[in-house]
């Protein structure tokens, strides 16, 4: 039986727990034995990407300690996984701490984004989900350009029973979130969001799906403000939904 440790990024844990719950339902249904190391907090992505790398180093140490020895680490967030895999090695190197460098080198290749874990590690694309709705998939920048997950999420979605996948115009365009960018350059971010919302509406789907709640928070924030009635769901929430049990998300 495969084992995996859940890496639930701070904003998923706090703001979007239903995405992590869905990931648990999904992976347990597929026979994965899960652990949740509860000393985990935040990977430090916001700090690293804003220039506060020194401040993020204790978070890196905490992450490495929390997940040491895990067979696999699975997260419902492409951007946090990208921080761990792409930024942690250089940060550890800069710290000069030999033990930390070794620990990071040993751990980070096993840190996987959900669609990578499902398709590459478990070897499944049909997870037995049922979702009778029209869906438009937003390939987030960090999932497609940093992790290069390619069409893994789409392959998973195509195998969902009852789903109607709608094409997204200009799918590869950034939604304009960019972490603290949305605060520092809020006007440009809002202009980018306006175009993304227009593209989502053009797709005429009921639901926008992505591999990251951060981009979905941004896109969903715009869709909600404009009263469009289009919902956002994490990929895990769609994949967790089955014909008899629903998504099993908490109330």
């Amino acid at each position, binding site marked *: 039986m495969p084992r995996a440790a859940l890496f*639930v990024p*701070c904003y*998923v*844990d*706090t*703001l979007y*727990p239903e995405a992590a*719950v869905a990931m648990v339902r999904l992976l347990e249904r597929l026979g994965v034995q899960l652990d*949740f190391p*509860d*000393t985990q*907090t*935040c990977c*430090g992505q*916001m*700090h*690293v*990407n*804003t*220039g*506060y*790398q*020194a*401040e993020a180093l*204790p*978070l890196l140490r*905490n992450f490495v300690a929390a997940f040491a020895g895990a067979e696999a680490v699975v997260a419902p967030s492409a951007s946090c996984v990208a921080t761990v895999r792409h*930024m942690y090695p250089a940060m550890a190197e800069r710290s000069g701490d030999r033990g930390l460098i070794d620990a990071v080198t040993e751990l980070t290749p096993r840190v996987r984004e959900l669609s990578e874990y499902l398709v590459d590690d478990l070897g499944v694309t049909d997870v037995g989900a049922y979702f009778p709705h029209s869906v438009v998939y937003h390939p987030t*920048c*960090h999932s497609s*350009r*940093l992790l290069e997950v390619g069409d893994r999420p789409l392959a998973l979605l195509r195998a969902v029973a009852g789903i109607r996948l709608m094409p997204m115009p200009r799918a590869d*365009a*950034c939604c*304009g*979130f*960019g*972490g*603290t*960018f*949305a*605060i*520092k*350059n*809020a006007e*440009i*971010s*809002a*202009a*980018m*969001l*306006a175009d993304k919302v227009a593209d989502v509406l053009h797709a005429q789907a009921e639901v926008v799906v992505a591999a990251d709640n951060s981009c979905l*928070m*941004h896109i*969903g*924030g*715009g869709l*909600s*403000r404009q009263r469009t009635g289009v919902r956002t769901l994490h990929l895990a929430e769609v994949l967790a939904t089955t014909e008899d049990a629903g998504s099993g998300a*908490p109330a």
Partner: protein
Amino acid sequence: MSGGGRIPLPFHDAAALALRDGQLRRNLGTVTGAIRAKRTAVTEELPDWQALRAAGKAIKDHTLRNLGHYLTQLEAAVTSRGGTVHWARDATEANRIVRELVAASGEREVVKVKSMTTDEIGLNEALAEDGVVAIETDLAELIVQLAGEEPSHILVPAIHKNRAEIRELFLRAFELDPSELNDDPADLAAAARSFLRERFLEARVAVSGANFAVADTGTIAIVESEGNGRMCLTLPETLITVMGIEKVLPSWRDLEVFLQLLPRSSTAERMNPYTSFFSGTTDGDGPSAFHLVLLDAGRSRTLADEVGRETLRCIRCSACLNVCPIYERVGGHPYGSVYPGPIGAILNPQLRGAPNDAELPYASTLCGACYEVCPVAIDIPTILIEMRRRVVEGSPRRPRRLSATVEDVALRAAARIFASPSRYEAAQRLARLGQAPFVRKGVLRNLPGQLSGWSESRDLRPIPARPFRSWWRERAATAVEEGEK
């Protein structure tokens, strides 16, 4: 770099103003959208595009590692073919060299081939101090010059202007009657041509930049689309080329790679229309005097920087500008430099280091589109993150901020919270309580302070009652209880 005429505002403020210019956004959206689609088509049709990118990167890295060798080789080759090589530490030295050469010629007017490097050093303004007029002969550069503006794109300097605006400008600049000129692109080009032809025939001194320089033969390569550059390179008696030291390549065979990478990345053309090569001087053919000014201006310092040095691979194709969602919406002027867009956001802090440059690395969502299209594979997002680190932590060139900003305080406090699982869980509970005043009809609105930028155009769902970790623990506890029954 000169600052004359540029918007002196910080990036954020200048960008906010640019966003309100509906005509500008339409002009930019149209042009970048069209060139993006074309670039994708002409790069995807090549089976070996990624191999070409890797070759371009490898050749540049090799040359930069041995830069001193190739530059002295270039100097020897240029000199042996009748040219004169000058070395300039910075913009002031380069400008002084060119001014002295022009003064010695006695000319009051020089014609210019489109050149980013001479824009970078503010050569036109420096020549103007001596009463010398530098005429830009690239059509778009001419438009920008006549308008008294700054280029807003590396390759398409007048991208911010549409043809109706250009017609208005030409009517005034060439003193034409409105009946003599419509806004048809061919007519606009014809009007510029008749103005420029006279300049070409009169000019005795020309100034150019360089796209590439071949070290072993001393050959300069100029890549352009109009043929106006070739006029400048062949008709005048004296030719002065100003080039950044990173433009040198070892040999002609290296051009095979770059003459594929550059046109496909920049103008989305399979082959460049006008590619001129010249090596020193030849009796009775072309300029009788050739001067090559090799410009450092921060380049050797950048070369010494382990993270930043790959910036010097840049061949100024501007593919990164065309795909950048930030550039697409605000244009080039808010960057306050001749190098705008993603490459400008990493180049300016390294080459120039002006006060406003500290903001430029933050003019990005780190979406990575720039890295994906870069023909020499410059990892712009990673360098942006490094530049941001230097803004926060300070660097030899930029001392750490003296007083803490709101962001410093907030992010340092957050880091302390995240460093401890118990503080993190306490903060989750506090945030749930603290959000109450901002929840209206089930969404967070009108957030305070710097967060107001978010809530102006986006809703935010309130923090739910139970974080994931509580759900997990409760489920585990229930499972244990059920197991005990």
